[in-house]
């Protein structure tokens, strides 16, 4: 069916650009490999968990950095460390890299630097969320039109 082909093409293009732009790396592909008939929504489930988790962590970081009486950099670093870990686990490469930079500013106890990093991480996170949600929407559309989702190489 033409619509399925179109959607599949869009899916492949979208997927390719996610990788090419470094928004996701091979680990995301590894996750996709784990999806099977027993858990057809595995990737969406894990990514949703990641979104929930990340938003909490980003809020923690913002709050900790706002403290007028003195920033607890250890606390900020702990949240960044967690976000770095989970983004690495799902293959969110740019978020992960932004976290790595963030950690050095935490270590240096540099509030300005940390605030800049938080902005960067938040930006990368929003970008990732947006793009992955589009990807998942395309998947749903393909399935609804009776097609199958192209498998990543």
């Amino acid at each position, binding site marked *: 069916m033409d619509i399925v082909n179109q959607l599949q093409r869009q899916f492949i293009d979208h997927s390719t650009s996610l990788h090419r732009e470094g928004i996701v790396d091979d*680990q995301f592909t*590894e*996750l996709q*490999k*784990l999806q*099977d008939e027993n*858990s057809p929504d*595995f990737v969406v*489930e*894990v990514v949703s*968990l*990641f979104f929930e*988790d990340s938003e909490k962590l980003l809020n923690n970081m913002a709050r900790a950095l706002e403290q007028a009486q003195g920033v607890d950099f250890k606390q900020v670093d*702990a949240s960044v*460390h*967690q976000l*770095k*870990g*989970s983004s*690495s*686990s*799902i*293959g969110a490469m740019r978020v992960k890299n932004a976290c790595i930079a963030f950690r050095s500013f935490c270590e240096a106890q540099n509030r300005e630097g940390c605030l800049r990093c938080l902005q960067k991480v938040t930006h990368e996170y929003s970008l990732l969320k947006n793009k992955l949600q589009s990807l998942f929407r395309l998947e749903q559309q393909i399935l609804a039109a009776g097609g199958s989702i192209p498998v990543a190489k």
Partner: protein
Amino acid sequence: MEVAGEVLQSGSSQELHVLAVDDSYVDRKVIEKLLKISSCKVTAVESGSRALQFLGLDGEKGSLGFNGLKVNLIMTDYSMPGMTGYELLKKIKRSSAFREIPVVIMSSENILTRIDSCLEEGAEEFLVKPVKLSDVKRLMKDRVSRGVTEEQEGRRVDKRKLEDDNLTSSSSSSPLSSSPSTTASFGCDVSISELLPSPPHSSKRAKLHDAD
């Protein structure tokens, strides 16, 4: 579903029961899936203390593996709040009831001194995160082939496996003496007859190969 009280023998069956420990919900979900796909039974817990509770090692007068399912492998994250994976590893290796259970450490940080101390304390292997399916499959293959070897030789074969071939460390054998007094602090009964006969646990052993 296992019948309560039934002990799962992992000898010939491929179904290993893995206890996975990680404070990250995302990572628990991923490791659980990796293990299930590799035909393992999985119990995933969020902390070292929960892991000890599950094993019955938390000082409570509980039974060994209270739900009847023997744990064949423990995979734990290194950096966790409260009890780290390293501390959990030590507690397990100092328990005569559970020290034979192989413990694999997972960490996002590839730090040689960290790797060394874990292996020194008796970790089976140190995996750098993110853990991939190929890592788990390799663990399973080693486990199964070692299980067969143990049955054939009636002896435990420890080996040091490093994730990165470039990492090397000295492999001097320093056998840890196992003293029965260590079990007292864990408040559990020792059923030595259930365990395979094995030499006192060595903190480090040179890699022993059978087939290669």
